């Protein structure tokens, strides 16, 4: 068993962990962006921003995640779990306040909550993936 595991190249051994790690990075960055939106609810002229996932394997991946400015309309595609939004860029037209601020507190808070749930889910997934690998590496015994 161990020999079989060993014959895999190291990058193959942890290949299931890498996308989960990337997802954790994405959700944490997104939390920063959403927190910033909430903090700026009273900043004149501020438009809320959001983070879109990057298409798997595309050139964008090298650059990391892209930034998406959202309107007060319904939630952006990235939030709904669709992974590819690329460089989509929607600008706010409706929902602006008298001071030019477009932040809707409820909307941002909702995004924040779902983003946190996703982070928690992925972290549990990566934990169990690693536990499985540990079990295999330990030759079928608990770590």
């Amino acid at each position, binding site marked *: *068993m*161990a*020999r079989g*595991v*060993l*014959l895999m190249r*190291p990058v193959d*051994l*942890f290949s299931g*962990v890498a996308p989960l*790690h990337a997802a*954790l*990075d994405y959700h*944490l960055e997104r939390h920063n962006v959403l927190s910033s939106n909430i903090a700026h609810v009273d900043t004149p002229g501020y438009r809320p921003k959001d983070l879109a996932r990057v298409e798997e394997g595309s050139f964008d991946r090298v650059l990391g995640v892209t930034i998406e400015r959202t309107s007060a309309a319904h939630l952006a595609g990235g939030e709904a779990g669709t992974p590819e939004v690329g460089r989509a860029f929607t600008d706010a037209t409706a929902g602006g306040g008298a001071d030019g601020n477009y932040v809707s507190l409820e909307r941002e808070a909702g995004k924040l909550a779902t983003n946190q749930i996703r982070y928690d889910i992925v*972290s549990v997934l*990566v934990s169990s993936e*690693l536990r499985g*690998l*540990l079990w295999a*590496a*330990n*030759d*079928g015994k608990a*770590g």
Partner: protein
Amino acid sequence: MAVGPVDPTAISLAQPHAPFDGAAPLGPGAPFDGASPLGPKAEPGGFASLFAEAVGRANAAEHVAGAAAQDLAAGRTDDIHGTMIDAQKANIELKLVGSVRNKIVDAFYELWRMSV
């Protein structure tokens, strides 16, 4: 877990007592080097090379995890999940080395029993 059949031609570990030193080869063209006390002859695909690889990876992973942990503890980084993942990877690599060592020892004893 049962030990699988061992391919004698793939075993190239140095034996401390060198019972095979100078004896007839174990198999056709056996590359076994029992006279070398300095360590296993790393043959590609052989247990020794796999073991060396595993040790190398475990070492590297330990370095990465140790550095990450120090950075987190010293406040040089915010990366909690990254550090935890690196720590677990190092743990896994280490356990792998242990398992491989056990397999090698098992294989040796299987051979040892065979020769007597």
